[in-house]
């Protein structure tokens, strides 16, 4: 290990790290402080640091100003993120279990297919997937050939469905399932309790950290997503929180206090999840990143 006594360098190292941390934190501090400044004060130059007059009304206004309130966007984001994450887990667990422990024809080729699909960048799939969603057969007034209606456009399904498989999750879960000691598998086969019961009772409880990682990052990426929800939704009542921020940016161009209040409310769930689950976050990143 490189750990050693830093001696006379210690204060300098510490000062550098604290300075860096201050820069990392500054936008959050500026957001929170700004969210309490009224429209006049947020447009002062030079800016005030602490609000001269605390103006918590920004939060009320930011919540109630959009036509269907910020609550609606929150609900949309919650539905998309929770259902998306849950679906990702189910689809991922089943596939990963089969790839890790079952034998079937074409298994290795299919697994390679799953892995290669991570190489396809989102830009390439963006346009065809948008058209696929609009022309989804038998949905939204479409006929069997995808004509006539709007397909899955402007629905929750459009925001959830394309991300359910998550090749990377399948890979991660498969690695975790492979690490379950062989004795368990053999014992289960002796008992004749293979299949889903074994997966549910033995494998999943043993791989909770990996499941948690997949769930956390699934939720995070749905919550923070912009591009896909932006193009597959039209009505404000379907849009998630990050697309709502575009609405605030348009409507309140110079009322920075109000926009900061909305920003803070939208970011707060992620900050809270992160604070409570940061060990899993960091362990997840470290294992996904390199050792996989």
């Amino acid at each position, binding site marked *: 290990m490189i750990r050693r006594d830093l001696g006379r360098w*210690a204060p300098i190292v510490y000062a550098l790290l604290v300075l860096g941390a201050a820069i*990392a934190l500054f936008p959050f501090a*500026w957001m929170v402080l700004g969210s309490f400044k009224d429209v006049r004060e947020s447009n002062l130059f*030079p800016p005030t640091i602490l609000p001269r007059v605390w103006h918590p009304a920004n939060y009320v206004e930011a919540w109630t100003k959009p036509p269907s309130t910020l609550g609606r966007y929150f609900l949309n984001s919650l539905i998309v993120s929770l259902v998306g994450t849950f679906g990702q887990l189910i689809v991922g667990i089943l596939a990963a279990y089969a790839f890790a422990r*079952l034998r079937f024809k074409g298994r290795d080729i299919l697994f390679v297919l799953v892995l290669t699909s991570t190489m396809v960048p989102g830009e*390439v799939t963006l*346009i*065809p997937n948008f058209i*696929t969603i609009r022309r989804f057969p038998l949905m939204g007034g479409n006929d069997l050939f995808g004509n006539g209606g709007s397909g899955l456009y402007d629905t929750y399904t459009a925001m959830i469905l394309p991300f359910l498989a998550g090749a990377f999750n399948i890979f991660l879960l498969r690695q975790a399932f492979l690490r379950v000691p062989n004795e368990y598998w053999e014992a289960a086969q002796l008992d004749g309790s293979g299949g889903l019961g074994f997966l549910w009772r033995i494998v999943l409880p043993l791989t909770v950290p990996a499941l948690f990682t997949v769930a956390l990052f699934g939720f995070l990426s749905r919550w923070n997503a912009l591009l896909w929800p932006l193009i597959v939704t039209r009505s404000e009542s379907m849009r998630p929180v990050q697309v709502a921020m575009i609405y605030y940016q348009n409507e309140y161009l110079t009322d920075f206090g109000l926009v900061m209040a909305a920003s803070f409310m939208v970011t707060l769930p992620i900050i809270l999840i992160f604070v409570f689950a940061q060990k899993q976050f960091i362990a997840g990143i470290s294992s996904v990143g390199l050792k996989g």
Partner: protein
Amino acid sequence: MALADTATARAQRFRREARRTSGWAGLIYVLPALIILVIFEVWPIAFAIWISLWKWDVGPLSFVGLANYERLFVEGFVTVDYDDKPAVGEVARSLLVTVYYTIGVVPVTIVLAFLIAYLLFQPISNRGILRTIYFLPYVTASVAITLVFGWIFNPRVGVANWTMELVGLPAQTWLEDPIPVAKRVLAWAGVAGIGDWPNNFAGPSVALFVIILFSIWSSLGYNVVIYLAGLTDIPSELYEAGRIDGATGWQLMRHVTWPLLSPTTFFLSIVNTISAFQAFSPIYTLTRNTGMGRGEAGGPLDTTLTITVYIFRNFYERANSVGYAAAVSLVLFAIILALTLIQFRIIGRKVHYQ
């Protein structure tokens, strides 16, 4: 003994049965994932190729063969300006912007992350809290937090200009400034000479520079955590051996830590480059009010129009060149693949695996 034998026999029988019976179960379990991957990841490649052969707005209008590619590779690279003089085409310019952005973000992020991780690895107090703080921007990076940057760099009332004023530097218009940073800095320093240099070839604009700052800020934490994981894996015997041989701290870092972390650096260089080529959200959010009044992202004067934003513009904002946008997206795909392969060849050779 006999008991063990029957147990083994039974286990073998069950395994044989499992092999036989799971033939269908396995396929059924992977089926949902496969269907979704095929529809939304595999089929789109073929579909994108098909779309790129059409003039297409809300639907296919006419089959145009390779005309979209011709537009991309001919007009896209060399075009003529208002005076009929040759000028850099849209595609070439947005590739250039993408390269500036990537070069601005990736090396700086990797070097800073290595230094921070190295320092964080030392026995200091509050390491956990510091690590949490460095990681926070990565998990919260979104439109919401990008808008904070928009306010910080507001030319009228932003705290960035206040800071410039406090340290005696001239105020900037930041996200509204299409002039290259290099020109601004040199002009301020009183150096003449690059004033006539074409803006396209003089590095990132001030606006792009602000976006680069945001991207470094938001991706640093991820890189730090990956480096910390790499540092934890280095066996301590190597350092002890080095210290017995009388190596200084700097020599240990130069000859032990850095080479042993080269797989990590290699991994990060690939991941960061790919995500830099795909960056969209911060550019869209920070520049959509700086364009030519059309509400299009990529301004001012298209100096933040990376290739991804260019695809978005043609596909969605103008919505009239879907076939062309598909062609550009396929070229981007080819570029990303090629870059990854090149990185594997060049850096992969120099990487030390333990």
